[in-house]
């Protein structure tokens, strides 16, 4: 259970929700993960998968101004677009309301030592911000380029600008047209999330030697790998493990638990 701190419409149909996690939500999310969110009791039936947009642990300040040993307030943010019944209900929630968040679920974006390029399209930018922030925290001097494409209106751009070396925004066109990938090598890593055509265009554009990750979406029921509802066909069933990619020979990947992050080879 979490309590809503704010739930603001930052662009037409786009909301930024901040919730405070209570003590029972123990896990700390990693970039790329998602939560199953519900802001209602029984109806609609299923919870909705929403990516971690941001996460912060804020120390509570004690009366004498010190933060030493103080408990932390854990604030999780979601950036979401109203597209149907569930997201409409989320948008109606007001400050102070309870919302149920189960998670974090799914695998994470890889730890990147390379130069990093993020390409987001529309609401697909949601999972990229927390990744960008984490990358910047861990690698103060390395290059972080961000491309954000929107159909009609840009949003959240200023947040990305705070952490990136460059942010390129496109509204109404093809974000891939704005990308210069001529110098890309195996010293670069690309992560993309957005509509399928955009991700395909990105994958087509990035040279083969540059590792490229995509974050996928699928209808989900369980979010934990139990229902097999969210599978995508994959040429081989790859899994990211500490030993690299492994496959058990079956033809599907589960977006919720094998993913949502996949190397492009898995899904191309």
């Amino acid at each position, binding site marked *: 259970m979490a309590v809503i701190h704010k739930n603001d419409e930052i662009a037409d149909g786009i909301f930024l929700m901040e919730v405070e996690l209570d003590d029972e939500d123990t896990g700390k999310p990693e970039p790329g993960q998602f939560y199953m969110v*519900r802001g209602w009791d*029984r*109806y*609609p*039936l*299923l*919870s909705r998968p929403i990516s971690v947009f941001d996460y912060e642990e804020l120390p509570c300040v004690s009366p004498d101004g010190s933060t030493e040993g103080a408990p932390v307030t854990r604030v999780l943010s979601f950036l979401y677009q109203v597209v149907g019944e569930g997201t409409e209900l989320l948008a109606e929630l007001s400050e102070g309301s309870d919302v*149920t968040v*189960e998670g974090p679920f799914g695998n994470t974006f890889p730890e990147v030592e390379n130069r990093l390029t993020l390409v987001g399209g529309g609401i697909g930018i949601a999972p990229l911000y927390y990744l960008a922030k984490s990358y910047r925290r861990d690698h103060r001097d390395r290059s972080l380029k961000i491309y954000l494409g929107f159909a009609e209106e840009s949003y959240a751009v200023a947040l990305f600008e705070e952490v990136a070396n460059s942010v390129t925004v496109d509204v109404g066109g093809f974000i891939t047209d704005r990308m210069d990938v001529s110098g890309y090598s195996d010293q670069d890593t690309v992560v993309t999330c957005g509509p399928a055509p955009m991700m395909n265009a990105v994958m087509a554009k990035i040279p083969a030697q540059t590792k490229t990750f995509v974050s996928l979406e699928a*209808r*989900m*029921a*369980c979010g*934990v*790998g*139990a*229902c*097999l*509802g*969210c*599978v995508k*066909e994959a040429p081989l069933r790859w899994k990211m493990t500490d030993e690299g990619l492994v496959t*058990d020979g*079956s*033809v*599907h990947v589960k977006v919720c*638990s094998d993913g949502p992050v996949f190397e492009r080879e898995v899904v191309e």
Partner: protein
Amino acid sequence: MNRLAVDFLGNHLKNPVVMASGTYGFGTEYARFYDPAELGGFSTKGLTLEPRPGNSGIRLWETPSGLLNSIGLENPGIDDFVGRIWPEIKDLDTLILANVGGKDEESYLEAVRRLNDIDIPIIELNISCPNVKAGGMAYGMEPDKAGEITEKVKNVSRHPVMVKLSPNAGDLVGVAKACEQAGADALSLINTLQGMAIDWRTKKIVFDNTYAGFSGPAVKPVALRMVHQVCGAVDIPVMGLGGITTWQDALEFMLAGASCIQIGTAGFADPYAPLAVIDGLERYCEDEDVMLADLIGKAVK
């Protein structure tokens, strides 16, 4: 005193709450939320002789208080279960049922034979999956066919066999009786109703397989009716399911005659749903000072 304990085919269950096949993976997926040992038991994802990739296309579609699924029995095959999965889960300290599907008689029988190698307590014979083209539900639609496959499976299995019935059968009570006569040790019902979705935006039939399996709170009134009908017609024990979400739902199915209940779709909406059901039943039995098993079949007119 454990007021929720039930016996089912000689197995002692801590409580009658069993997670339904296909909604609980192989028992470890929900372990991050709670220890599966808190459950009465669970039924595995449907297993078939050969590994199956399942259906293509969209597999899930939400409906008012319900869920359509077209998974199509995706599973790693019986050998992978016996050789790899079973050793990993067999000590979970909860009742494990192996749910078995098939595309024809021989594939059912061979799968069941291979389960003779392990000490699985109960086989749940799935003759009611609406999501596969061959076999599946076809065996569960008519008394004769259901009886025949049950008898043959019983002949090759060293384990007790619980037959899972399809709500799509016209003569469900006939099917239930035929299974009982053929030697079924128990019955479970209901599997999913057959449903359909069309996406008005695209004018497309949503599922590649056209029709899909329908479950969740929406189906509860139909499921409860069927469990009541079947419990009135057979003497073997029944696991009741279909839309169970709250402890009150669970209690109603037991009042209707079910010895145990299963929870499927409700666990998607709330991973803790089974624990809430167990807690609620416990408090109820405490307040009423009853043993839950004494309420089985006690619904009155």
